């Protein structure tokens, strides 16, 4: 029993240790930010490594906490994401007074996600969800002096509290109709009576809120714009990824009996999300706000993928998230470096960027191409496999719709490339000195973007571990 605890719970334990270590450091005499961040990055790296040993599935606490290869892999993805983010925010945090607090919030939220992903029980799930959300609200407010930051935090905490109360209502009805909170038992009691359908929709709306699917997405743009770039990238990649993983596990494992219902639900939401996301992204100038809407559109494509409810669907989701981590974080990396060093966050500021910072421009370009889904970047494969999975159901309407929307998305991604390469600007952003570690992060991202696509082993591995309906 106990050794299982240490095996199955190893990543969570390591993370907790790291958090406590940080607390102790805080109590002790203050250290230089560099050393602290290096320590944290090392810890995260270690934690990432932990993911690769001893894979056997199992559960703890009477099935409250379950784990298997898939779940470990998902945790590893999130871990990788955090690592990259923390490397990128180096330039921002270098001279910041409250580094440790920042990391405390981030890591706690990550811990919450870990628990949420491997939850085997609605209670555990709820705990994980809140644990991952509340710290983020605080983190969103991390630029204490900025007006926007506090506004963003307020919007986040209020709307997430609202959504979680709705979610809870849904859970309570589920409980009421089934009498259990454990997934494995719950799935047996799901029979699609109106109450359960209602409960499911309430429950699902909670997820839709977190992954910012239309019409539950409205908080996204404001929060992304207001909060510090590091938090924004965390929200856009990590928390979305975590919630999506959980969603897929729940849909495929628990809500199997009402698959037809949620298939339809997913398709509708997907269509709306893609369209709205694209239309709003068209007219944004603030880079973070732009990425917010583009990420909404991306979620729409993801929903198309997971609506397949097949092994390929699950695999394509996992694969896409992996690529999305690389692509989106590469983009955010450039943006965070620029905003940390110059405070500029608008697309129009990037005019003539290529003249002064060719390397950064190429990184951003590759990232945007990957987001747009242009070969040979990995994004092409990611998006294509999502669509392929979606097409398997034979519902080509949504595929055509998505395909045409891809063209719109091309427009706004290429618009930025155009700004960087083609537009003239008398006062472009001056040449930037990028910290070595951020460079490393960008390199990792670019390498990931290029390799994960062409090298099919990645996808094949993901496919082998992922589970369909």
């Amino acid at each position: 029993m106990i050794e299982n605890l240490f095996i199955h719970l190893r990543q969570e334990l390591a993370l907790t240790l790291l958090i406590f270590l940080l607390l102790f450091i805080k109590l002790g005499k203050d250290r230089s930010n560099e050393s602290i961040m290096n320590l944290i990055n090392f810890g995260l790296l270690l934690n990432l490594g932990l993911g690769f040993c001893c894979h056997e599935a199992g559960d703890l606490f009477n099935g409250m906490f379950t784990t298997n290869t898939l779940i470990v892999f998902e945790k590893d993805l999130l871990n990788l994401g955090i690592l990259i983010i923390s490397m990128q925010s180096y330039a921002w945090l270098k001279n910041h007074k409250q580094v440790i607090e920042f990391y405390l919030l981030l890591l706690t939220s990550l811990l919450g996600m870990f628990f949420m992903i491997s939850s085997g029980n609605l209670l555990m799930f709820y705990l994980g969800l809140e644990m991952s959300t509340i710290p983020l609200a605080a983190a969103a407010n991390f630029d204490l002096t900025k007006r926007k930051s506090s506004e963003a935090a307020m919007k986040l905490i209020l709307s997430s509290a609202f959504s979680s109360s709705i979610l809870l209502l849904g859970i309570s009805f589920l409980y009421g109709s089934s009498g259990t909170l454990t997934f494995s038992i719950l799935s047996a009691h799901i029979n699609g009576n109106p109450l359960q359908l209602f409960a499911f929709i309430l429950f699902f709306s909670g997820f839709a809120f977190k992954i910012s699917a239309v019409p539950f997405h409205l908080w996204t743009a404001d929060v992304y714009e207001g909060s510090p770039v590091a938090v924004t990238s965390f929200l856009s990649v990590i928390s979305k990824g975590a919630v999506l993983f959980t969603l897929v596990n729940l849909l495929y494992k628990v809500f199997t009996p009402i698959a037809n219902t949620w298939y339809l639900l997913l398709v509708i939401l997907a269509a709306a999300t893609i369209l709205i996301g694209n239309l709003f992204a068209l007219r944004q100038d603030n880079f973070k706000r732009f990425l917010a809407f583009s990420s909404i559109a991306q979620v729409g494509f993801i929903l198309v993928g997971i609506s397949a409810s097949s092994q390929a669907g699950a695999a394509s989701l996992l694969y896409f998230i992996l690529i999305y981590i690389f692509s989106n974080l590469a983009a955010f990396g450039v943006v965070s470096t620029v905003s940390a060093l110059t405070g500029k966050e608008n697309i129009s500021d990037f005019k003539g960027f290529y003249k002064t910072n060719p390397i950064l421009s190429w990184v951003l370009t590759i990232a945007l191409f990957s987001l747009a889904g242009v070969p040979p970047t990995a994004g092409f494969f990611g998006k294509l496999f999502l669509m392929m999975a979606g097409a398997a159901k034979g519902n080509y309407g949504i595929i055509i719709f998505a395909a045409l929307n891809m063209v719109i998305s091309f427009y706004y991604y290429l618009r930025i490339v155009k700004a960087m390469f083609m537009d003239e600007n008398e006062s472009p952003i001056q040449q930037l000195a990028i910290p070595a570690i951020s460079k490393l992060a960008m390199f990792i991202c670019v390498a990931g973007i290029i390799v994960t696509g062409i090298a099919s082993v990645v996808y094949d591995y993901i496919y082998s571990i992922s589970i369909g309906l």
Partner: protein
Amino acid sequence: MNLTLLILIPLLTALLILLAKGLQQIRTIGLTGALAQLGLAGWTLKLYLDQKAAGNKATYLFESNQSWFKALHINYHIGIDGIALAMILLTSVIVVAGILVSWTMDKLSKEYFFLLVLLSMGAYGFFISLDLFTLFFFLEVAVIPKFLLIGIWGSGDKTKSAMKLALMLMAGSALVMVGLFGVYYNTNTFDIVQISQQGIPVGVQKFFFPFAFLGFGVFAALFPFHTWVPDGHASAPTAASMFLAGISMKLGGYGCLRIAALMPEAAHAYSWIIILLATIAIIYGAFATMMQTDLKYINAYSSISHCGFVILGIGMLNKTSMNGAVIQMVSHGLMTALFFAAIGMIYSRTHTRMVAQLGGLLKAMPFISTVFVIAGLCSLGLPGFSGFVAEMTVFMGSWQNPEAAYRLATILSGASIVVTAVYILRATGRAIMGPISEEHALLGDASWNEKLAAILLITGILIIGLAPFLINHLIMPSTDVIMLQIEKITALK
């Protein structure tokens, strides 16, 4: 013979260009790579012909089939038949010429040559792949470089045209994607060979053929999806225009050909639409050209008209017309590339492309003018040049279709050769002949690299024009194979 080399050489060249320093090194590397590729293509041709002569009856030679995404039955399956080989030769010739023409490109030269090579890599990959997924992959690889090439190095309203081009081509490939999914989920494979063996249910064909065909049609400037052509070509830098008209539009034609071969019933059912659109494109393009005043616009619109012949040839669905379509692709590629090269040379000297502002260039720059005239004569289908062979083959083929409407289409398309003569001679008469303005009288003639490029392309044109039996000998067996499948169907009807 490992065809992957055809992708690896450009890849290697691109990487070396990234490492190189200074225009001198970069262009040398680029040229070397291109020449190596040309040599390789020639060598492939030799091996191919040897194999055929040795009685190898296989449809596709030098096949190699590795699994790429095992889980999704996506294979990296490559191999070539005569048609693909012809396209590869065309591409390699144009790449060499293009690099020669942009010999003195000093603005961001590294990126420029890198993108050129990348574009060519996409084309090679496209032509060798026998797996629809790989095909699609390389098709899109070839798109984005165009956007950057036009947007950064272009002229005029470049960003707008670049954006238009990229978006329309992407819309095209989105349509293609839908079509390919349809094929995939009804045959469980992307493999062209397998699909053509096991066939596709007719209903499926009827539904998905339009997507795939029109998608590729956008690339081939099929009416009414051609509007990216004029702006794109006009704004692009010389080499990019050459690549655009010489290579990328051929991607579309080739794709249409393959799709028609894969979905014969649908192709047969929809052939009247295809022919209608093609005929419109031919006539419409020709008349629109007649009204243009900018040399590049003239050539761009005439490309619409000429590519219409490709689609017409495919739509008529018989051996001769198919042959004609393929020859027209090669011929048009060489010819337009030559035309754009000449226009580029003129523009780089006179800094204007307006026909009205030019005149009597034959006096100042005899070589360039001669090249221009040769390109013009080829495009109005003069015997001895490739254009004649191609168009006549298409006509012959189309005429074999005894329905009155199809005959009418053929005659109308035939009428375009008169209009072609009109606009070519108008342009030539104004720009090349007539009195020369004094500031143009002192301009110099072509430099060695430009001469080399032009001569290379002209040689290609003449080889096809004077000895068409050579290319016929290369492509006919392959078109016969394609037609066998289609005729099986049409026989049933």
